[in-house]
């Protein structure tokens, strides 16, 4: 497995490089620049700013400069936040986004698998139908509808939870964003678990275990859960991507200083270096997450062999 991991990591480098090149070309292709505003800068000042940030050099030269800084770990200055470098901004935002994302995934997995299992055990009963109805709602209603509704209900009307991120430092400010992020994933995971659990519960070895007198909880815990998890684990890759993109909306609504907010802001402000830095971070994370998921297959199912 160590060889497999190493090979995967090395293979990721050309992918990352391609992503960087494409992202670089795309951000520079967008009309408008980081210093455009209704108040047009006098030409001398604009020339000075462009020279300062090397924006007057030809694109290949700018790209080479960017790459050489990148290998030294320097993601460059932010064009919009003149007091911060890109590394500082990302270093501040990444822990927040990771915390939110992992808590949301954790919540989604626990609640989703639990709900799916219960629905599978009570297949076609009222409980099953109710759980699946909730799942359908969670999938159909977008995050940018659910999140403000949650805020209106739980924060504004009932005052149980903070409406925003910056108003308090207590952990309660995590609850609403995590729930909002997790809801669609809970729905998907519940449906996946239910379907695959029904399949597994119908197999011969489960019938044998039941015949041997094993209780339901023990059957699930020791025999049914692991095989039923395979589709859920396959879903983890896209799920993490969905949480990453969904986090942009959630961060906007709750005012959370996460990577998603800086990404969107950077794109709109033409903050080239910030956008590129975040693209690199996202791409690396997705590559690593996919690798993790593949390794997890092997952990869960001993029949999986790595080529």
């Amino acid at each position, binding site marked *: 497995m160590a060889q497999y991991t190493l090979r995967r990591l090395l293979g990721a480098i050309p992918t990352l490089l391609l992503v960087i090149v494409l992202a670089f070309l795309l951000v520079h292709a*967008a*009309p*408008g*620049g980081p210093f*455009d*505003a*209704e*108040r*047009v*800068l*006098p*030409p*001398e*000042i604009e020339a*000075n*700013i462009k020279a*300062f940030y090397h924006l007057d050099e030809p694109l290949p030269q700018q790209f080479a400069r960017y790459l050489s800084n990148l290998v030294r770990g320097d993601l460059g200055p932010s064009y*919009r*936040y*003149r*007091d*911060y470098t890109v590394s500082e*901004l990302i270093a*501040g*935002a990444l822990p927040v986004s990771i915390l939110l994302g992992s808590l949301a995934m954790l919540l989604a997995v626990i609640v989703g698998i639990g709900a799916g299992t219960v629905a599978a055990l009570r297949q076609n009963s009222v409980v099953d139908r109710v759980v699946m109805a909730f799942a359908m709602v969670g999938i159909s209603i977008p995050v940018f509808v659910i999140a*403000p509704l949650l*805020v*209106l209900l739980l*924060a*504004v009307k009932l*005052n149980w939870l*903070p*409406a*925003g*991120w*910056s*108003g*308090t*430092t*207590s*952990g*309660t400010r*995590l*609850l609403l964003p995590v729930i909002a992020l997790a809801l669609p994933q809970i729905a998907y995971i519940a449906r996946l678990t239910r379907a695959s659990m029904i399949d597994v519960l119908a197999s011969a070895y489960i019938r044998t275990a039941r015949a041997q007198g094993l209780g339901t909880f023990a059957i699930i815990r020791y025999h049914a859960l692991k095989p039923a998890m395979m589709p859920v684990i396959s879903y983890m890759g896209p799920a993490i991507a969905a949480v990453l993109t969904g986090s942009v909306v959630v961060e*906007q*609504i*709750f*005012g*959370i*200083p*996460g990577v998603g*907010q*800086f990404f969107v*802001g950077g794109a*709109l*402000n*033409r903050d080239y270096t910030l956008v590129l830095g975040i693209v690199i971070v996202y791409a690396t994370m997705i590559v690593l997450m996919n690798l993790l998921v593949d390794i997890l297959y092997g952990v869960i199912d001993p029949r999986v062999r790595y080529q």
Partner: protein
Amino acid sequence: MKRIRCWLLAAACLALLGCGASDGVDNGSVLHRGLATDPESLDPQLARSMQAANVLRDIGEGLLSYTPDGQLVPGSAESWQISADGLVYTFNIRAAARWSDGNPVTAENFVIGLRRLVDPAIAAFYASTVIDIVNAAAIIAGEAPAETLGVAALDTRTLQISLSRPVPYFLRLLTHPSTFPARPTPANAESDKRRRSLLSNGAYRLMSWEPGSLLRLRRNEYYWNDAATAVDAVHHHVITEETAELNRYRAGELHTTGNVPPENFAAVRKRYGDELRVTQYLGIDYLGFNLSRPPFKDKPELRQALSMAIDREILVEKITGRGEAPAYSWVPPGTSNYEPPHLSYADLSQDERNIIAQSLYEQAGFSADNPAVIELRYNTSATQQRVALAVQAMWSDVLGVDVTLINEEFQVLLSNIREAKITEVFRGSWIGDYDDATTFLKLLTGDNPSNVSGYKSETFDSLMQRAASQADAGRRRLFLEEAERVLLVDHPVIPLYFYVSKHLVRPEVKGWEDNVLDYHYSQHLSLDAAR
């Protein structure tokens, strides 16, 4: 073992929920204010957005300042003398003015700040604020070193500024954050970056800045007027979504908001009554013409017809509906020492305007068989889309013009406007930098890079130049008003409506006074403890 792990996990979750940092910054009264965007910099000479200026006004102070209701008063300078020809200003800096580390604010600090402002290496956005100081233009163009700027520290507390021509509103410019003082920076570039958090000469100092989220300020005990500062700490919450800001205000997390969402404005007005503060503001929303290419090049009748066909009353009542005023001039009313002239048709009824517009349209050579074909560009925004749709409908109904609406992302629109290759008529806005008519009129002079319509009128430019050389305020005003009359006849732009500033302010916040500049210094505010 597994059980213990479970309990540990549960305990960690509970601990996470309950934990909260406490570092003494927020002892005492705390004012929570909403801020619409993250400041791009808190370096006074590098900042350029309104939001950065709002925070800078709390953590810095210029030579002059404003009262809550918008009157100019001494700031760090306690008195000043102006020479008879209006070219030399001598300021006496307060003895009690101090930085937040206890060191006195000196005249040299202001010299450094102003030199930084014009230094091309700094590339300050607002360098042209002080263009009238001796040598400023040459320094900005890179033709002279920054040390030749016409500012000098005669002694520790006496600052002298020499102008190349009289500027009657110069004192008002010295309230702008770009003119705030600066401390000499050591040669180390890293510590130059950190200056944002270290020193302030204002009523508050910056204690922490989480980009994208929160700026925390605490009172600066060394500030010369600290005794009058009522609130101990100020939190500026960065909230980009206006609806999210409204929700947080409703939940009681904010004392004041930076804005109010345009949707459901009537409901907000009904529900919040006096908490909603809507005031005239020095800003205008307009449609600009690209005068360098057809269809508007050399077609003043067409431009005037289009302007007359717009029912501005309907725009402000039904389309924007937030208390804006219809614009029949270019300079907003409420500007000091100025009475803007009006468009010639300001007092007619809309029906009368429509009739004249139709005849002008025909004079321009268009008719039902030969309609004008126009592209109207606007930036992505719910309000702007509604305005564009209304204007399209009005032009089509009254004149029979064939209008295509083109929606572009803001930066794309700006880029297209600047290049002036494909734009015809486009939405624009302008917010005054300081309280004087020239901040609007200068926009349309022939040599201004921000002159996006390409308007070049010798009459207008010469009137503006003559106004600039007048030492007498009354004569200057006459020239400016005449220049605006010329502008309004030529129609390089269609003024639509003047902006209003809108905030929600909780009843327990005292000292918030509406003013046309929309400056609300935190040091003037207090929290009614009884609530």
